[in-house]
């Protein structure tokens, strides 16, 4: 798994809010929070993305961009995002399935989905914090905010 200090693997996936393709480059210079989650619509994911959606202004205070990633397709993401009124993009790691999750070392071969994993990446594209939660547990937002806070203090 990609760890703190590693260069964040780049990628480009469908799923921008306007349907555009999005990669790390799109956020050049900004901290990025990559949220890998197992699937749209599953109850825990619902509460995890809902929680982050509700806390977006807290990530904004660090100038950070939150991005969700799962193996669901772009149309599924669009319906899910609309239903949950999400204000951050969901990227479709759909074809080849799980390719980006594999790059980050958080793909579950056996289940065909990705882990519930968090990566905080700085403006230079270096991973500063990562965390894998037990798949059924919503990890909350505190770990992300603490990492962004440390990053800001360290410059």
């Amino acid at each position, binding site marked *: 798994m990609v760890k703190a200090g590693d260069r964040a693997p780049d990628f480009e996936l469908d799923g921008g809010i306007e349907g555009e393709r999005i990669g790390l480059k799109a956020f050049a210079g900004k901290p990025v929070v990559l949220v890998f989650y197992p699937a749209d619509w599953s109850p825990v994911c619902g509460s995890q993305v809902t*929680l982050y959606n509700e806390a977006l202004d807290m990530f904004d205070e660090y100038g950070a961009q939150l991005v969700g990633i799962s193996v669901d397709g772009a149309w599924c993401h669009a319906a899910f995002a609309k239903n949950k009124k999400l204000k951050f993009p969901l990227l479709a790691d759909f074809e080849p399935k799980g390719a980006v999750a594999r790059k980050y070392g958080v793909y579950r071969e056996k289940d065909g989905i990705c882990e519930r994993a968090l990566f905080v990446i700085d403006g230079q594209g270096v991973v500063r914090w990562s965390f894998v939660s*037990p798949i059924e547990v*919503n990890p909350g937002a505190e770990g992300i905010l603490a990492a962004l806070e440390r990053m800001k203090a360290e410059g």
Partner: protein
Amino acid sequence: MKDEKKIKLEQHQPGLVIAISEKDHAQGPTDAPVTLVEYGDYECPYCGRAYPIVKKIQQEMGDKLRFVFRNFPLNTIHEHASQAAQAAEAAGGQGKFWEMHDILYEHQDELVDADLRQYALRIGVEIYRFEKEMSEAAYANRVRDDFRGGIRSGVNGTPTFFINGERYEGKLEYGALVEAVRAGVSVREGKNQE
């Protein structure tokens, strides 16, 4: 496996980071051996389920328990949650927080503005002040501050409970919660005897 999960989660679950202060809404004595804090959302069905459980535990524990309620409305999925939370705070501004808190949990499906006004009338708050404060969103920041504090304490959904500052990880049922609260009492009282 279970232990491994616990260790992983402890890395970023700091417990209750916002200390209880006079700004909080609390029932029970300040020096009670156990303080139970709930982060809740008035439109959340699980919080609705927790409401009678907490009431029963309060009855059972009497003066040994202080109960604190903090707002954690998930507005984007519960469209009336923030308004309801503000209504409870506005009632609180007139000394009737708990009356509104209770009525909201007893009417979780009826939380539109007209309902909130009805409840305000029913509990006997000064209605013009209530309506003025609601229309000015006078308590929006207060509700938001509770939410932000909850996020920093690792609250990941509602209801989330803390017993003497430690997050409660057990089931949302009377037996498990009251047992955890009782355990909090014996830890505190054991310490006092030392």
